[in-house]
């Protein structure tokens, strides 16, 4: 009972902090938070593949980018398109891309999966870069109209105000995060973990391994698309840079640093990277150097990421306190 009260008060506190955040920290940190939230969702969707299904992808940016392009193109070409359908178009376009690719990619795993995605990611990047007429190439699509969020005839909120957009982005990304969490808790989510740990055994139990992988793949792609879509709306710009190799490595880094073994690990990793980039850009231009060195150090010394580090510390601590309690007892 107290546990439940504690849980609910924690949730209320979190919502309250998120609600007053823009008032407290001002516009600069509000925008920083939106960027963090976008990459957190992007990384969590990536971790559905890596952490839960054991599939390492080096091309996850293609879903992010395609989601962004889907939204941007729709808003540019369809006059008077409301906001939510625009985000939905982003989601659907990423999901469709995943559907097209999944017959090919679910047959492989491990290094081949990673490399195949590196190549497909690069293919998408090349397409966006070369098809200037549609995508605008390196300059991208910018200045498309950002529609207000509203229920017709009831309310209409201008999304060009950064503070309003903050609330919209947080709500959409929060719902995405919750949906992905729910997805991992379903019985299907358990099969997914089974595929990671022992695919052959899952096969013998009568579940279909490639189909399971395909479903996870499409879900992960769709949510990466949502992240990309919000990112495009937030920047009011999407360019071929959103599809490049560095965007693909971003969730890899964030997930590894946060910890692949847990659902919220990538969120923590995203926060660490975001803060690190924010701090390093004040002192030096060498963001790559810092990220690279951190990545190497994390793999060398805390291979399970910060969440894994926290867990093992807690285990050690509880083992020690249990030991102390036992020692205190008269034998």
């Amino acid at each position: 009972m107290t546990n439940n009260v504690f849980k609910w008060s924690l949730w209320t506190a979190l919502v309250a902090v998120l609600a007053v955040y823009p008032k407290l920290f001002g516009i600069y940190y509000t925008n920083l938070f939106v960027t963090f939230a976008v990459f957190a969702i992007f990384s969590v969707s990536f971790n559905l593949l890596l952490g839960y299904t054991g599939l390492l992808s080096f091309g996850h940016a293609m879903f992010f980018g395609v989601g962004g392009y889907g939204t941007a193109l729709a808003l540019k070409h369809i006059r008077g398109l409301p906001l939510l359908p625009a985000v939905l178009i982003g989601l659907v376009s990423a999901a469709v891309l995943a559907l097209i690719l999944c017959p090919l990619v679910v047959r492989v795993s491990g290094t081949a999966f990673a490399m195949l995605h590196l190549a497909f990611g690069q293919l998408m990047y090349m397409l966006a870069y070369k098809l200037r007429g549609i995508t605008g190439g390196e300059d991208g699509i910018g200045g498309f109209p950002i529609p207000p969020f509203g229920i017709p005839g009831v309310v209409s909120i201008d999304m060009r105000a950064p503070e309003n957009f903050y609330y919209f982005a947080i709500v959409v990304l929060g719902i995405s995060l919750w949906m992905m969490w729910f997805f991992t808790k379903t019985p299907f989510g358990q099969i997914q973990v089974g595929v990671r740990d022992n695919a052959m055994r899952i096969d013998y139990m009568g579940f279909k391994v490639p189909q399971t992988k395909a479903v996870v793949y499409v879900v992960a792609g769709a949510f990466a698309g949502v992240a990309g879509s919000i990112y495009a709306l937030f920047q009011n710009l999407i360019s071929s840079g959103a599809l490049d190799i560095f965007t693909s490595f971003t969730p890899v880094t964030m997930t590894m640093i946060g910890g692949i073994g847990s659902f919220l690990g990538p969120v923590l990793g995203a926060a660490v990277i975001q803060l690190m980039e924010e701090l390093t850009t004040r002192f030096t231009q060498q963001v790559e150097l810092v990220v690279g060195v951190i990545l190497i150090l994390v793999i060398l010394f805390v291979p399970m990421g910060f969440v894994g580090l926290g867990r093992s510390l807690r285990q050690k601590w509880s083992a020690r306190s249990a030991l102390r309690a036992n020692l205190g007892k008269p034998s």
Partner: protein
Amino acid sequence: MNPTTAMYVAQGMHGLAYGMILFLVASGLNIIFGMMGILNLAHASFFMLSAYFSYQFLSMTGNFWVALLFAPVATAFFGILMERFLLRKIHALGHMGELIITVGVSLVILAGVKIFWGTESLPLSIPPVLTGLVSIAGMDYPVYRLFIIALSLVVLAIMVLLLYKTRLGKIVRAAVSDADMVNALGINMPRVFMIVFGVGTWLAGVAGVAIAPILLVFPGLADQMGMDAFVVVVTGGLGSLSGALIVSIIFGLLSSYGVQFLSQFAPLLMFIFMAIVLAIKPTGFFGERE
């Protein structure tokens, strides 16, 4: 010979030269993968590093041959350092960590190159001995491209001799099929891994020096070559040298003729080719494992 045929032949030469360079990079990648199961994502970064070393040696001594001799060795030295102090430490934790640590190394090399040599393109000139054209059977060939092809063939011959005629080669071939078993037979596998990693990065280094005079040396060089080399290795089959050779040459020709007929969409040809091959045979042309 009429001009159209001449143009085709010239394009073919360009393609062949690029294909051979691609093979040098891809074969290093492939040997390392075959032995250690690591796909070294920093491999192309070593290639780029070697091109920069070549620039450095050239501007210090002015002698291309010195650069050709020492730049790959310096690159291999860094490769060995990476194997000894990073990869060996985490070998027991599985491939995922190794794959990601190579990403970290590639970022560090990229940053290092930018710090030491700046971000602008550095021009390197073709050594005077190898400039100009040579005419064979009524056709003019650029000497430097011929030199690249010859150099690659020599390196290939050395590799084949090493692999099939020496004790080390025998150990390497045995280790490709079962590294644990070779280790159990009392062979110092960590040292063999180190040597193989060194040789692999040395191969990338040779390619880097050879290509530097015909491309510009800039920090994006690694991405450009890296992607091509990965596609070659995946398409040819991971761990297969002959697959890498054949696919490298196909890609070299595909890109040089592609530029002529499809101009800006030429880079896509390679990926389409790869997608078709992998759709039919997920392990690549000659690959047996994923």
